[in-house]
């Protein structure tokens, strides 16, 4: 995902001199090509996320299009009040790119896990929140963010996420995508864990449960229609997210369900409190109740329980 982001940013910077890559001293090697070819459109703001975000807002005031990039946790928590006051309140054309979604920095621990970002950023006015599921979707998200004249947060993983799309497809901000048809349960997900969710749906198929998979790549504005439709069509819903179960996609889906008086059996799986332990990303997800087996079990409980 990180390579996909940088390739897209590289293309944008080549086409538009107002595009700037801004970092907070991270991305040592990955930015080399960009830095070499666009030295005037690259700023290392130093290890100071708050200043980076508000400074980017000032650049946007002068017509620049800054892409401020650092670990999502540092953006969303440390610079939060700057995102609120300097970017969202003034509706500035700043793109904030948070890397390391969920617990993908699986060896680094709780300080680097980005599992509360959606919860804290969802309420912010004027902010578009994109949470792409694969490298191809990262490209489309970054291109879409560039076209939006306003604040955007893009949540991406690291560099090992598999592609989930076989062919090119239409990406529209605010419109969820049905990745897989199914009639018994709707699996609603966001981000790179969509790959695991598709695997879980295959496994469910073998066990006689037909699951559709909905990819919500835009957390805000939220595609209520696709959620309502899939809930009504299947009567069962399981939200899967690599984020805290409080305040993220599950909460957003529950809000839609409750507001629209939809009768649906609901379950959501995600992360609780701090992610415990260290290891490979897949192992860590599994160890924290977010493995493919856990998704399969949760769906069976809902459909058959």
């Amino acid at each position, binding site marked *: 995902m990180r390579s996909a982001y940088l390739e897209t940013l590289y293309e944008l910077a080549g086409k538009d001199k107002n595009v700037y890559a801004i970092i907070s001293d991270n991305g040592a090697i990955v930015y080399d090509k960009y830095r070499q070819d666009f030295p*005037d459109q690259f*700023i290392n*703001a*130093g290890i*100071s996320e*708050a*200043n980076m*975000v*508000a*400074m*980017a*807002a*000032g*650049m*946007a*005031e*002068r*017509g*620049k299009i*800054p892409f401020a990039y650092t670990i999502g946790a540092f953006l969303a928590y440390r610079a939060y*009040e*700057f995102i609120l*006051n*300097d970017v969202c*309140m*003034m*509706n500035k054309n700043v793109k904030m790119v948070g890397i390391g979604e969920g617990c993908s920095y699986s060896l680094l621990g709780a300080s680097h896990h980005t599992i509360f970002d959606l919860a804290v950023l969802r309420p912010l006015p004027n902010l578009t929140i994109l949470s792409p599921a694969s490298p191809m979707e990262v490209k489309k998200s970054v291109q879409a963010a560039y076209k939006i004249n306003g604040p955007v947060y893009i949540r991406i993983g690291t560099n090992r996420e598999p592609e989930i799309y076989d062919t090119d497809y239409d990406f529209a901000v605010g419109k969820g995508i049905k990745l897989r048809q199914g009639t018994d349960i709707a699996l609603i997900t966001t981000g790179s864990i969509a790959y695991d969710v598709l695997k879980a749906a295959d496994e469910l198929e073998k066990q006689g449960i037909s699951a559709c998979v909905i990819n919500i790549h835009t957390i805000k504005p939220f595609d209520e229609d696709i959620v309502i439709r899939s809930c009504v069509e299947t009567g069962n819903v399981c939200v899967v997210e690599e984020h805290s179960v409080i305040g993220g996609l599950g909460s957003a889906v529950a809000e839609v369900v409750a507001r629209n008086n939809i009768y649906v059996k609901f379950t959501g799986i995600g992360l609780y409190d701090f992610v415990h332990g260290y290891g490979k990303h897949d192992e860590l997800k599994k160890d924290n109740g977010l493995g493919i087996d856990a998704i399969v079990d949760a769906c069976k409980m809902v459909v058959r329980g």
Partner: protein
Amino acid sequence: MIKEMPIESIALKIRQEILKMAMGAGGGHIAPSYSMTDIVTELYFDNVLKYDAANPKWDGRDYFILSKGHGVLALYVALSIAGFFSKEQLYSFGKIGSDLGSLARANSVPGIEASTGSLGHGLSYACGIALALKKDNLTNKVYVLLGDGECEEGSIWEAVMFAAHNKLNNLTVIVDYNKLQAMDSIKNIMSIENFSDRFRSFGFDAVDIDGHDYAEIRSALLGDTFISPEPIDKPKAIIAHTVKGKGISFMENVPIWHYRIPNDDELKIALQELKMTKEDLGDYERLSYRNVI
């Protein structure tokens, strides 16, 4: 008209209007606005800041970012006198339906460049503007006014480092050094004084001035009093020694007046010292927003 008035008269006018607005709204930061009134007067009415009141977003303008957003009463009056918006709008201050509150809000009030009020934001924002201007080889200047207490925010020093490292010589920081913060004197709360030394050690050129001496303010704002002549590659810091509450004797240097409105007895003294009458305050009521609509 206004340009022909002596600078002292304009500053007095601003202080008078601030009192009227605060009395009419029943709130507002009078004393923090009075310490910076003379600085704002110099910026807007002595050919320092380039602006076009009829076209607030004029591309050739200089920027004034009020980072201590609670001083916005002084800025509102200056902007209104300069022609950015009407006297009626000025007098809508603090009323339901008005865009003018006790902290600065951009986008809805012409001439207000940044939404501030939460402290420690404006300098970073100003750095972004200054950097973008330099990238485009433009000569617009960026002024940012900080509170002295505001400098306790860590983000200020993130921005100071950034400005010096990036050689933002189009940026001038003004510290409204009135020696008081909300609850007490700065020195009793946090030892962050010797501002000019601190800014110099971070790579700024810095001068100390009397923040109520118009000639000193003007020279410093124009960059005349700094050690290195232009074009140097350092950002500038003006440490403006000011008096919180300047203009009304009982408010001066008294912390409680950070956010307080005079009672009837105090008001009599205030009016006298600002060369006003009760009728002048009546003017406020007549023009107040609720009577306009």
